[in-house]
C-alpha cells in the first residue's frame, strides 16, 4: 500500500509548513508561503526538519519509504510507541525498509533528519494494514534557539536534546533551532505567535554574540519585543528564556560591539524582570550555566557545541532545571 506524503492519515509533527510538489513534499520549519520575508540566512536550516516527525498508527510490522535527502546528511529514526526500532542514513538508502516493527496497533514515528533538507516521496505499508492518523493530545512545546537547539551533532534525530526532553516529559515538540541563526528576528516572533503552543522556550545569545547582530542598545529590546509579540496571542502560556550555555572563549571576551556572554545573561535576566514587573506572570529566566556549565566543558569539543553525550546531559539538566520549574 503506497502512501503519498499528503495522505491525511499521516500526521506531520514538529514542522511549520509543507511545500507540495508533483511527487514529493518538503517539510519546512518556517512558513514556506512567506519565505521571502524571512532572512535569507535562515532558509537552509529552516528546510532541515530537526525535531520533525511523520506519525501514524498502524498494525503493520514492516514499513518502507522513499525519502530523498537534498544535502549530504540525513539520518532517520523509526520509533514505535516511543521505542527506537532503527536508524537509516537516507544519503545511502533513500529507499529504506524496516521489517522489525512490533505486532499490533502502535504509534509509529519517523523522526526526520536534524541536519539536511529532505523530499518525502512516499511511504509503503503491507496491503491490508490498518492506517490511522495520530491525534496528539500532549502539550505543544515550541523551542526556539540556535544550532545547539537544532542539535546536529546528536547521535540521531530522536536524540537531540529537545527530542529527549519532549519524549521524557510527554510534549509535542516543534523545534525551532536554526544553526547559526536565532537572531531574534521579529518575523520569527510573529511565526511563534501564530503557532499553537502550550509551552514556549527561547534560548538566545550565542549567535548574536558571534555575529555582532545586536549591540548593548538593541539586544535587550529585541528580546522584549520578541516576547511581547508572542504574548499578543499567547498571553498566559508558560514561557522560559534561557541565556547561553557555557562557552569558554566568549564568556568575558567582548565581541565587535562590546558584548560578552556574562553581560548578555544579565541583559536577558533584566528583560525578564522588566516584563514580569509589567504583568507577565508566566515568564521565567533560567541561566544557561545551570543547564550546561563549565563542569561539562569536556563534552564540548569545539568549545561551542555539545557532542552527542553532551546533548544527553543537557537534556537531563533541562528536565531537572527548566521543565521541573516551569512546566512540571
Amino acid at each position, binding site marked *: 500500500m503506497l502512501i503519498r506524503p499528503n495522505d491525511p492519515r499521516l500526521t506531520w509533527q514538529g514542522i511549520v509548513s509543507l511545500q507540495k510538489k508533483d511527487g514529493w513534499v518538503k517539510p519546512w520549519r518556517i512558513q514556506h508561503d*512567506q519565505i*521571502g*520575508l524571512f*532572512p535569507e*540566512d535562515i532558509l537552509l536550516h529552516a528546510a532541515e526538519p530537526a525535531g520533525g516527525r511523520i506519525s501514524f498508527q498502524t498494525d503493520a510490522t514492516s514499513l518502507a519509504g522513499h525519502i530523498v535527502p537534498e544535502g549530504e546528511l540525513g539520518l532517520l529514526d523509526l520509533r514505535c510507541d516511543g521505542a527506537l526500532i532503527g536508524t537509516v542514513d537516507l544519503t545511502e538508502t533513500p529507499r529504506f525498509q524496516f521489517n522489525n516493527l512490533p505486532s499490533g496497533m502502535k504509534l509509529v514515528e519517523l523522526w526526520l533528519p536534524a541536519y539536511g533538507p529532505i523530499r518525502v516521496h512516499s511511504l509503503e505499508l503491507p496491503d491490508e494494514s490498518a492506517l490511522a492518523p495520530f491525534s496528539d493530545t500532549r502539550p505543544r512545546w515550541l523551542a526556539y534557539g540556535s544550532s545547539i537547539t537544532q542539535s546536529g551533532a546528536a547521535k540521531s534525530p530522536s536524540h537531540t536534546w529537545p527530542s529527549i526532553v519532549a519524549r521524557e516529559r510527554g510534549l509535542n515538540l516543534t523545534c525551532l533551532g536554526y544553526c547559526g541563526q536565532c*537572531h531574534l*528576528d*521579529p*518575523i520569527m*516572533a*510573529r511565526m511563534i505567535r501564530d503557532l499553537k503552543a502550550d509551552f514556549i522556550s527561547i534560548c538566545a545569545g550565542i549567535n548574536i554574540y558571534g*555575529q*555582532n*547582530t*545586536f*549591540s548593548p*542598545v*538593541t539586544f*535587550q*529590546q*529585541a528580546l*522584549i*519585543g*520578541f516576547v*511581547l*509579540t508572542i504574548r499578543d496571542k499567547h498571553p498566559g502560556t508558560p514561557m522560559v528564556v534561557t541565556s547561553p550555555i557555557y562557552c569558554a572563549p566568549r564568556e568575558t571576551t567582548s565581541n*565587535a*560591539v562590546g558584548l560578552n556572554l556574562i553581560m548578555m545573561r544579565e541583559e536577558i535576566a533584566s528583560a525578564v524582570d*522588566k*516584563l514580569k*514587573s*509589567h504583568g507577565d506572570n508566566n515568564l521565567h529566566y533560567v541561566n544557561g550555566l545551570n543547564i550546561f556549565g563549565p563542569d561539562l566543558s569536556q563534552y564540548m569539543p569545539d568549545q561551542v557545541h555539545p557532542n552527542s553525550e553532551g546533548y544527553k546531559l543537557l537534556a537531563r539538566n533541562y528536565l531537572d532545571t527548566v521543565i521541573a520549574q516551569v512546566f512540571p
Partner: protein
Amino acid sequence: MSHTIRGDDPRLTWQGIVSLQKEDDWVKPWRIPCGQADLFPEGVAIQAQRPSGARIVFRSDTASLTGDILSEEDDCFLDVSSNGRLCGTVDLTNTPQFQIDTLPEGDKLIELWLSPASPIRFRSITLPGEATIERFEDSRPRWITYGSSITQCRAAESPSQTWPAIVAQEQGLNLTCLGFGGSCHLHPIVARVIRDLPADFVSICAGVNIHGQNSLSPRSFCPALVGFVLTIRERHPHIPIVLTSPIHSQGGENTPNAVGFTFAMMRDEIATAVEKLKTYGDNNIQYISGLELFGPDLESYLSDGLHPNAEGYKLLGKNYLNTVIPKVFHHSA
C-alpha cells in the same frame, strides 16, 4: 478676574504626545506611554520626555495669555501661534512664567508648540476673565514620523520650525513626532507604540543611529525593518507608509562601522525591505532615499557633519514637502 486652566482641563487638546503624566500640581507630556517607560530603552525614555512637535491647543478670543510652564533642562523655548501664524517665542529656561500680549483679535486657534530640547512640567495657563476658551477638535490627517535626532530637531530655530513641524503646518497634518535623538534603533516596542496610535500616514527614517552605534548589523537591520513595518500594519493595514534612508553625511556614506555597515549599504537594505513587503501584498509602502531630501549639495547646512542647522531643517522641510508629500497625498497643494 481671570481664569486659570490646568493641564488636565478638557478644553485643552494635547497634540503630538503619546501620554500625559499627571501629578498634583503639574502634568508632563511624553512621547511614549509614561507608565511603561522602564520597558523602553533608556535613550528612548529620556528623549521621549522632550516634547518635540507637541502642542497644547485650544480656541479662544483672547488677545493675551500668561502661563506657568517649568522647564526641566536648558534650551526650553515655546512658540505661540494663532491660526497657524507664529506670534511669539518665549524662553522658559530660567523663568516658568511667561506672558503673550500679541495675539490678534477675535476667535482663533491658539497653539503652544513645546520644546524639542527640554522636558516640561505644565502647571497652568491663565486667560483674562472675559475671554472665551473652547476645545479644538482636529480633523486633519494624523502623521506619525519616527526617526533620530534629525527628526527631533533640537537645533531648529524654534519649536514650530523643526522640519516635521514645517511639513505638518504646510500640508495640514496633525503631527506626532517620534524623533528620538541617538535612539532610532528600530526597537520593536516603538513599532508597537505606533501600531497602537491612530494614524493616517506613517514615516520612518532609520539608519543614522544604527550606523553610529553599531546597533544592528547587516544580518539584523533588514529583518528589524520588516518586523517594524509588519507590527505597524497589524492595526494600520492600508495607510501610506514611507521609509527614508539617512540624509547625507560624509562620514557615514562609505565608511564601514564596527559591524561592516555603510549608509550606502543601508540604503540598499531599506529598498530591499520595501520590495519584500510589496511582494507580500503591501500596496501602500514606499522607499525614498534620504539623499533626495538632503543631499551633498546641502553639506554647508550641516552643523557638525551630521545634523542640519536651523536653516538646514527649513530646507529639509521644504524638500520633504516637495519630494515625499506629493507621493503620499496625491491631491496636495
